[in-house]
């Protein structure tokens, strides 16, 4: 057993075994628990600098969201850029990170049309600096088990179509308006001390003042429930009916509301009104103007509603 050649032979045999085990384990690592893509989206959200969406509703027109000096801006169809609230971009990117393939739905170009992965799709491109890190096409959706939906997607550089969870069209098929800041009033009502209503018609001007947690108009105490309800309805107010006009083209200023907030800058709401227009401007969102036809009177409520 222990002759001269036995160790030589054993060394050779051991070497062959080591090579075999290494090769086998290397190939085994590729045969894991899954034989199709585990992920479609691999982005570092902190490095993303540009999001381009080509929503199917705009038939290929680009909605570009750019990071400029750490602030997200979206282009608009009339050439102006608007700030995008950070939370909207974060939500968008987080939704993208959730896009995980559940299955391979098709593997040929012939099927692209069937799954609406063509000109009818919504396309998303993500850039980190100048590098394009994602180019995703979103096709048709399908109803799954009770209360759930799925969407068919494809990477632009790939042929395979994957089914992923969720109704992605609702998240990504959006216009630039959907990314603009919709805030009109966003404040804590408990910190409000005074609401000063000024109107071109001096009869409508009044002040609602808080004294010892009770509200008064011209020294008369208001109905506490009615006042609470009215203030509740405007403490968080958003709207997406933007008015895309320059301020110079606005009608004359007709009303102004100043909300004095404890330890904070006052909130000022302006109303510009004529027989056709009712435009609202807020000091909390100076970039955007809103069409106030449906909610203007809610902000500029009459003092009679408080009694």
């Amino acid at each position, binding site marked *: 057993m222990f002759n001269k050649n036995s160790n030589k032979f054993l060394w050779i045999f*051991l070497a062959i075994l080591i090579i075999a085990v290494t090769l086998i384990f290397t190939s085994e690592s590729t045969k894991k628990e899954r034989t199709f893509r585990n992920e479609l989206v691999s982005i570092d959200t902190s490095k993303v600098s540009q999001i381009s969406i080509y929503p199917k509703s705009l038939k290929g027109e680009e909605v570009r969201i750019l990071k400029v000096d750490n602030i997200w801006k979206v282009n608009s169809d009339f050439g102006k850029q608007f700030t995008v609230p950070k939370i909207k971009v974060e939500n968008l990117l987080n939704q993208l990170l959730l896009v995980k393939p559940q299955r391979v739905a*098709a593997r040929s170009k012939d099927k692209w049309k069937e799954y609406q992965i063509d000109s009818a799709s919504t396309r998303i491109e993500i850039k980190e600096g100048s590098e394009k890190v994602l180019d995703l096409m979103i096709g048709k959706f399908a109803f799954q088990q009770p209360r759930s939906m799925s969407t068919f997607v494809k990477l632009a550089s790939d042929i395979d179509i994957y089914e992923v969870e969720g109704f992605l069209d609702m998240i990504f098929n959006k216009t630039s308006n959907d990314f603009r800041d919709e805030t009109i009033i966003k404040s804590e009502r408990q910190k409000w001390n005074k609401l000063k209503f000024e109107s071109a018609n001096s009869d409508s001007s009044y002040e609602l003042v808080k004294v010892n947690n009770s509200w008064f108009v011209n020294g008369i105490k208001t109905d506490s429930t009615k006042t609470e309800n009215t203030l509740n309805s405007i403490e968080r107010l958003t709207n997406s009916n933007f008015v895309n006009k320059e301020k110079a083209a606005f009608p004359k200023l007709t009303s102004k509301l100043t909300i004095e907030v404890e330890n904070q800058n006052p909130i000022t709401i302006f109303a510009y009104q004529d027989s056709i227009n009712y435009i609202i401007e807020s000091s909390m969102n100076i970039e955007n103007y809103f069409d106030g036809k449906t909610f203007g009177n809610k902000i500029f409520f009459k003092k009679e509603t408080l009694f």
Partner: protein
Amino acid sequence: MLTKRKIQTTLFLAVAIIILINVLSSRYSFRIDLTEDQRYSLSDATKDILKNLDEPLTVTSYFSEDLPPDIEKVRQDFKDLLIEYSNRSNGNVVYEFINPNEDQEVEMKAQQAGISPIMINVRDKDQVKQQKAYLGALLQLGENKEPIPFIQPGAAMEYALSSGIKKLSAKEKPVVGFLQGHGEPSLDQLIQLRQQLNVMYEERTVTLTDSTNIPFEIKTLVVIAPTDSIVERDFIFLDEFLSRGGRLLLAINNVKGNFQNATGELVNTGFSKWLSKYGITIADNFLVDAKCSSVMVQQNQGMFRMNIPVSFPYLPIISKFNEHPITKGLEAVLFPFASSITVTQKDTSIKFTTLASSSDKSSLETLPLFFDIQKQWGSQDFGMSNIPVAVAVEGKIARNSYTKMVVFSDGDFAVNGEGQQAQQLQPDNVNLMTNAIDWLSDDTGLIELRTKGVTARPLDAQLEDSTKTLVKYANFLIPIGAIILFGFARFQYKKKIRNIIKSTDYV
């Protein structure tokens, strides 16, 4: 000269080699499939199904982890099978494994997908506890899904997977009609048969009236166990159906056993007369076979009344099958109260094939008949052999259209029944009927796969008890004896060599 260092090196190398071989053997094992039906190799049916797969199929396998080794093996076997499927389908079969026990949301998703949990016993720290485990898969192709709620080990795994794929990839399912209106069992009484047919066919009932013929979309019509007389109009419809190329399966009870008064009775449906014009005659007799099932009979044993199984030759177990796609892989089918079939060849262009026949010890009994349960059957009662009970016919049977027909002289072999009378059928009973429908419908894809699997191969009932005992012991003693013999021979050989070396004249 041997040094201590050299011995240590040798021992180290030996241990390292043993460890590496162990590591390799845990991953790979070599095996040769020596089984008669190649049950551990992919069948041609599976290969065909995968070859024709033109869209990707995703298999989401919901398998629990950290299970006892015997159950864990099912997971590995299924994975190996999927790798094989993936390779055979040019990558069109893709898969993933998910552990539903990891996350409640995933578990809910598995259940919504139709995967049923099972409870298994797990030994942990000298305690046996019950654990919920998942061993299922969801197949998805295009926009269709097919769950496999529970994956069974062995050949059943391949059948479950391949039939699931076949079901999903079938573009348009052919329609199989079931004739109703003459006392035939309803579709609800054919549970097991429908489960198998559902893979490939759409089932529909057919009721004939003066104004309703057999619909044109029905390619195969199945007539199972009618009890009422068939009106002449319906036979004309059947003639027309055959003459337009329709395929017909007849499972006819020409006689039946009445256990209430222990007599055999004639079932006059008119089919016997109608079939004779196509050269097939189902006789008005009862097949009796030494190879048979039993009935439970109450007997007094001292103070007790006990149910004793008594062999009942009127319930023949058919195990003689001729080579034919319909009978491929079948082992035994129970044909209760069957009759003999005879064939008269009128036209040589028509091909008659006897599919199944009785054993070498069988006979026929004619009416009137009284069942004597206590009768001691002897070899003198089984003087006949190979009595046909199923035939297949193909050719221009009716007018000039090519068609096919299968006739069974028993109508009950694939009927589960309903209510409290419902019974579980042996797999081959259902397989025979499904295979026949497949053959008639020109789709023999799953036949090979359906009958592939581990089936019981009991010793021939006719063998003497002593022979049975001999075969039983020889089965496990011969391999052990062979190993002992080899060891003994090797020992003797080595001893002889040692003696030669020790001998004084050895140089």
